[in-house]
């Protein structure tokens, strides 16, 4: 080491050392943070990517571009991640039926395998949010209903309504109802922020809190109509409508009957 220490006061020593340190940190970080794919072998993965690319070229590229770089009418898909593809294509929102204000949920065009292949392809372009696994989505075990309700009312109710029935946004856009939505898709929506929805990253709402929200939505959905017919759970509008139709209608009917009998 003596021959090295000779150069320790050399002009280039400090920059070189800095470069070396940066390289070391960078390499260590990338090795540590990389999520190695355990389930799919390199070979299978490549095959899935190729299949996904074939589907993409056929069904998606006319709007999203041949290399998913985006275009006049559709955004770039580089870096949106597998979760986004799984949400958009798995719920049938993509491919869009028409270029209207908002992609609507409809029966999916592709089967589960094709969706997975598309997701593989898009996530191979650049890393993005991954599809949550079943182990992650165990909301029954890891969620807390009351806390979820509190989080839902703070972050979600302003668009999706207090009972997750959906609500209106500007210019014909809307927040859809969350009744009957699969937990996986709710989770993916929170981490990818589809359409008008903001992204709720893991630092804003932790994975455990996301599961609590899902647990509360599921509990609200399963809740029996405690006070009688729920009237859509949209607040006083339907209540007012019922009082002006059935309520006063019945009473006026009785009044007419009472006045009639006297004759």
């Amino acid at each position, binding site marked *: 080491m003596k021959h090295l220490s000779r150069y320790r006061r050399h002009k280039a020593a400090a920059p070189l050392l800095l470069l070396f340190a940066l390289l070391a940190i960078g390499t260590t970080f990338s090795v540590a943070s990389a999520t190695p794919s355990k389930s799919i072998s390199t070979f299978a993965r490549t095959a899935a990517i190729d299949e996904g690319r074939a589907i993409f070229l056929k069904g998606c590229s006319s709007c999203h571009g041949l290399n998913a770089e985006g275009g006049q009418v559709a955004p770039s898909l580089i870096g949106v991640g597998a979760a986004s593809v799984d949400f958009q294509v798995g719920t049938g929102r993509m491919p869009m039926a028409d270029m209207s*204000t908002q992609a609507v949920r409809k029966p999916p065009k592709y089967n589960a395998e094709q969706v997975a292949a598309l997701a593989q392809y898009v996530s191979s372009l650049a890393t993005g949010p991954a599809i949550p696994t079943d182990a992650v989505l165990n909301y029954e075990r890891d969620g807390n*209903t*009351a806390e979820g*309700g*509190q989080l839902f*009312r*703070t972050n979600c*109710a*302003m*668009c*999706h*309504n*207090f*009972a997750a029935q*959906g*609500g*209106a*946004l*500007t*210019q*014909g856009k*809307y*927040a859809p109802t969350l009744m009957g939505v699969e937990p996986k898709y709710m989770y993916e929506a929170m981490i990818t922020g589809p359409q008008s929805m903001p992204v709720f990253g893991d630092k804003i709402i932790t994975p455990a809190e996301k599961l609590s929200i899902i647990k*509360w939505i599921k*509990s*609200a959905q399963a*809740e029996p*109509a*405690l*006070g*009688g*017919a*729920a*009237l859509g*759970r*949209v*607040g*006083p*509008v*339907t*209540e*007012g409508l*019922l*009082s*002006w139709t*059935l*309520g*006063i209608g*019945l*009473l*006026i009917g*009785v*009044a*007419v009957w*009472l*006045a*009639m009998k*006297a*004759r």
Partner: protein
Amino acid sequence: MSARERIAGTVAGYVDDRTGAAKWMKKNLNKVFPDHWSFLLGEIALYSFIILLLSGTFLTFWFVPSQHEVIYNGSYQPLSGLSMSEAYQSTLHISFDIRGGLLMRQIHHWAALLFMVAIVVHLLRVYFTGAFRKPREFNWIIGVGLLTLGIVEGFLGYSLPDDLLSGTGIRIAEAIIQALPVVGSYISYFAFGGAFPGDAFIPRIYTVHVLLLPGIFLALITVHLMLVWYQKHTQYPGPGRTEKNVVGYPLLPVYMAKAGGFFFIVFGVIAFLSAVASINPIWLYGPYTPGQISAGSQPDWYMGWLDGLVRMSPPLETHAFGHTISWNILIPGLIVPGIMFTGLALYPFIESWISGDKREHHILDRPRNVPNRTALGAMALTFTIVGLLNGGNDIISTTFHLTINQMMWFSRIGILVLPPIAFVITKRLCLSLQRADRDLVLHGRETGTLVRMPSGEFVEVHEPISAEKAWVLTQHEQPKPLELSDTDARGVKRPGAIKNKLRNRMSRANAVAVPKVSAQDLKEIEHH
């Protein structure tokens, strides 16, 4: 005389000796009321009020009007462990842990909605038939007061549980208070005992809701009914019915039985609704915190039209001398409703000023025979309905696949354009109906029987209408327009000439009518 009758007689005599009630009772129990279903609309409101008093008393046994924060440990699990006010906690307690509590809450709320519906329907009946005319102007004003107080009382009522929706409503009320120029922020601080939400507001509105306003209600309702009693009920036109008599049934036994039975039917309908349809599910709304809001937050329907006016108002604001004036809230939230309620209260005086009619009226108008009044009512109703529709703009737009922006522009333009259109159409309709009446009296009812004359001509056989019907169709007066001259008898110009001109003009518009059938007309037709 049987033993039972003797005992009854003794008891009655005992009471009469001490109260002198017999004479008064005899007079009043034989009092006659005219019979028509539309005369029972006010009764629906009265009975709903009684149901509100009864169910409300039940709720006060457990409701805790306090904004003190507690941790919920009750039986509704999805809220377990959350921090909330005692008001909200006790409402949950009533809903889930008190036997029949949820049903009582729902009875109270459905009764409140139907109370307001019945008041409005009753008001429309009184308005369109001209029942507010002399001598009933005071009772009309009391009625308008009851309507206004009903809106306030209802709002305070659904604000009490301190759930997310009610807190949102109070927040909007605070904004409307603050929109008062100069004094707004001070009044808001007085009302809330500091900054919103504070911890004083719910205890305060509780006292107003359960003590002050019901007290005023009871007093006003009593006067309202006593005036009906004293002035006697109006009646629809018919043979034998004059301005000096009332044709109908005596209070006892016919009306007592009917009214008593009707109370139980109203109670039954409200209890039925409360048993089968949920209303204000506060457990789903969650406890109020100022940081939260739900999509589609709406007030109850009787506030909905005001909310709709605020929603459609464009963002207007001026800053002057260090004060901000929020016209966008001030105009729809305070000025427009102020004008509407004042106009409503003063309407009987305005109408009699225009028509110059200062006489008493006990026979009701058929709405078609007073086209101007009917059209004006349709105009006001259209205005309110456009406001109400816009109050539910978010629910309507998601239900019918419209956009909120379309709804907003429809309302902004519609609120100005549709009421005048409604006025013109209604007035035309009234005149056409008058023409139809005239036709009916002159030519009789179309029987649908076609007869071929010897000449080959086809004619439809018309059957003369009954004398009773002809009376109803021709009994009304057709007022002549006022002809106030600008000068007095000596040709000197009078003061207030412009006012007279305006009055003449309005009076002319008011007197537009299709001439009704006269005796002369009938004679001529018989001659044919």
